């Protein structure tokens, strides 16, 4: 009699999804399906809209990572109008962008991932949340995190309007400049961010790396996936979130491709399966080879670990040191250990914070020259940024009146969709053995999934109290065999 486990809805992530786990007669995992259950059609209803409205509409794709959509959109407009933003405008945009990245990355770490390590992956679920973390490391930390988040979002609001839905950004520049008064509090925020990122890395070291059990978990094969990696780098192959070329490296570290975002269609393919609304990206030139990680694989990953795998180094000194340490500990580059995403995420936050400092101290930041008005409308505009969760591409085509005629979006989490399915499957196979389904297995499976921060570093304080999770085990006729409750 086959068994089936449905986890629905998936919680503590952006978007709506469910996981179906199928067990064989022995109770071992036969197959796992991670299904995304929603679709909205942005690529179609943006057609007919004036293109300068798109940076205002696109952030509605995701209220947790709206800034990357806003930024990719603005860059697509720069491209469409053949205009280079002024140096000051570029600084302002990157200040906005880095402030968002710091906030988003730190939030994911503290709210979603740190509980698993600070409190423990199989600890009592009631304590496995931010409150449990705070109890272990101190209330002050919770306060500091709220403060950093508030300050970073104040920068976003000041430059681009509402942090959950920034609407600023114009082709060739930004709509509003920065004053010297602004610079003062922004610089203060940047300094605080650098400090807090360093503290967070220290915490990670203390709690995870210095703890043999957790370090083994990070290096455990169940959480390992051999794939290609994609990320954006500058001319020195250093990680750059805002601009650069897209680089792909293979599972053994060799460079597979280095291309301008205009050529993305040659490299990225989107495969369609009938059981999920999300399209499964893969390397087009290799072709779809299914959900596998053997030598024929065409799967690649994006996001923090992928970016560090792809880059030869970081843009800023403190982050660079951490980068070197990480690969030394993990023992290889590229590192395939999925849980190392959490580590890489903190290193990225540090780079973003250091970059914020650099910009906040740049004399050009307060220049009044914030708009390049030499706009020449072309037919196609493509903008690419590294969103918190991975490479993000906005591709627009417009008519002679500047109305969108065609829109194609490659969204960060899509790149990871197939690898997520695979990671969940592997973890499920490792931790579910035999007919007795262990209560703790759910979280170990979720950890495989959570590491990717799939399109949502849930920006919230996970509140104390019950965290019930109900697993219904059904037979092949759908009758309920057993219910496991975790509360």
């Amino acid at each position, binding site marked *: 009699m086959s068994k089936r486990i449905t986890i629905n809805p998936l919680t503590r992530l952006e978007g709506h999804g469910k996981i179906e786990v199928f067990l064989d007669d022995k109770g071992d995992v036969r197959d796992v399906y991670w299904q995304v259950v929603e679709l909205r059609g942005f690529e179609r209803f943006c057609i007919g809209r004036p293109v300068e409205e798109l940076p205002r509409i696109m952030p*509605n794709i995701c*209220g947790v990572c*709206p800034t990357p959509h806003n930024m990719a959109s603005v860059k697509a407009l720069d491209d469409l109008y053949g205009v280079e933003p002024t140096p000051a405008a570029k600084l302002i945009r990157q200040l906005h962008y880095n402030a968002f990245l710091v906030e988003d990355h730190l939030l994911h770490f503290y*709210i979603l991932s740190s509980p698993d390590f600070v409190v423990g992956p199989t600890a009592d679920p009631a304590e496995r949340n931010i409150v449990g973390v705070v109890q272990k490391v101190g209330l002050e930390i919770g306060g500091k995190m709220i403060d950093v988040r508030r300050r970073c979002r104040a920068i976003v609001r000041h430059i681009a309007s509402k942090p959950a839905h920034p609407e600023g950004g114009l082709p060739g520049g930004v709509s509003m400049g920065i004053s010297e008064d602004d610079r003062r509090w922004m610089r203060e925020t940047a300094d605080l961010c650098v400090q807090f990122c360093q503290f967070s890395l220290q915490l990670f070291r203390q709690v995870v790396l210095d703890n043999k059990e957790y370090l083994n978990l990070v290096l455990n094969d169940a959480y390992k996936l051999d794939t290609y990696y994609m990320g954006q780098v500058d001319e020195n192959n250093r990680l750059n979130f805002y601009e650069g070329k897209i680089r792909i490296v293979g599972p053994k570290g060799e460079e597979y491709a280095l291309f301008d975002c205009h050529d*993305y269609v040659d490299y990225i393919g989107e495969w369609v399966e009938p059981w999920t609304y999300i399209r499964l990206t893969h390397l087009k030139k290799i072709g779809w080879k299914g959900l596998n990680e053997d030598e024929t694989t065409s799967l690649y990953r994006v996001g923090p670990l992928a970016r560090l795998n792809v880059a030869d180094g970081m843009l800023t000194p403190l982050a660079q040191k951490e980068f070197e340490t990480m690969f030394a500990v993990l023992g290889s580059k590229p590192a395939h250990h999925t849980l190392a995403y959490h580590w890489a995420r903190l290193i990225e936050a540090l780079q973003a914070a250091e970059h914020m400092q650099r910009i906040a101290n740049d004399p050009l930041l307060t220049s009044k020259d914030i708009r390049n008005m030499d706009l020449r409308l072309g037919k196609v505009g493509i903008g690419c940024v590294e969103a918190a969760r991975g490479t993000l591409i906005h591709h627009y085509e417009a008519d002679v009146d500047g109305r969108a005629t065609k829109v194609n979006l490659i969204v960060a989490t899509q790149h990871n969709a197939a690898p997520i399915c695979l990671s969940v499957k592997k973890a499920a196979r490792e931790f579910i053995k035999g007919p007795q389904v262990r209560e703790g297995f759910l979280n170990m499976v979720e950890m495989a999934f959570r590491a990717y921060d799939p399109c949502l570093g849930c920006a919230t304080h996970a509140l104390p109290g019950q965290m019930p999770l*109900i697993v219904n085990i059904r037979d092949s006729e759908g009758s309920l065999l057993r219910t496991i409750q975790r509360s």
Partner: protein
Amino acid sequence: MGKPKVAICWLGSCGGCDETIVDINEVLLRVAGAVDIVLWPVAMDFKYDSVKRMKNGEIAVSVVSGHVRNSEQEEIAKLLRKKSQLILAFGACACFGGTPGLANLTTKTDILNWVYRDAPTVVNPDGNYPQAAFRVNGEELTLPEFYGRVFPLNAIIDVDYYLPGCPPPPYLVMYALSGMLENKLPARGSTLAPHRALCDSCKRNKSKPDRISIREIKRIHEVEADPDVCFLAQGIICLGPATRDGCGESCMNINIPCRGCFGPVEGVEDSGAKFISTVASILDAESDEEVVRIVSQMIDPVGYLYRFLLPASILQKKG
């Protein structure tokens, strides 16, 4: 008597409304201490089954964000209506349909064909399309059914209160939450935001001439807008006069015009229609040719007028 139960749920939502709830920062912890949150999928692990087991009306307030455009969203909306005393439609999507409501200008088939067949990166030799039910290896996998259009929340269930905005600003969230918890609320059906138009509190209002009269409509990226002067007086489309106040001028403050995320002012149903009269009144055009010329410069009327509001507009609303 236990703490009042509160559910915070998202339907067709981007998550921005949940972010804005978190933006009330330390106040959230106080609120959390005063209530019993029984559902918050983005943050907590309660599943729908636990809500299904509750008694009708057991939840004091359900804060619902997002529009409805699939079968699961409809199901959850109806479930929460049954189990809750009060439903608060939270954010532009729940109140009016939101930006994704623009999809009502296209069809489900058009969306599916692009996403799964025609987009340049799609590789789909077998012509797969997501199915509501699909058998794989002897098991059936299901997906919620994707509807042909987007609905605001009140087209699906009765709504007690509205809080518009994309997203609602934290200070209004605080007022709404404390109003609900202290039972200090206006009549059912009210919108928990100021009644008047954005122009009422806009700093640029002082710069408005007695009579605005424009001969050209300008697009924001083609000009360097004066940050102190009324956008309409500069010929730039700004929906301030037809939009409810309360957002804190987040867009005006970075020198871009209003796009109407707070919806219509008190007493008005369709702000897009009202705004047409506003635009007409500021156009300096008498002859037929003049009118045709200048009206054609407003190149996307439905997009400007109804960016957040299409499903709730006169032509689209139910009934």
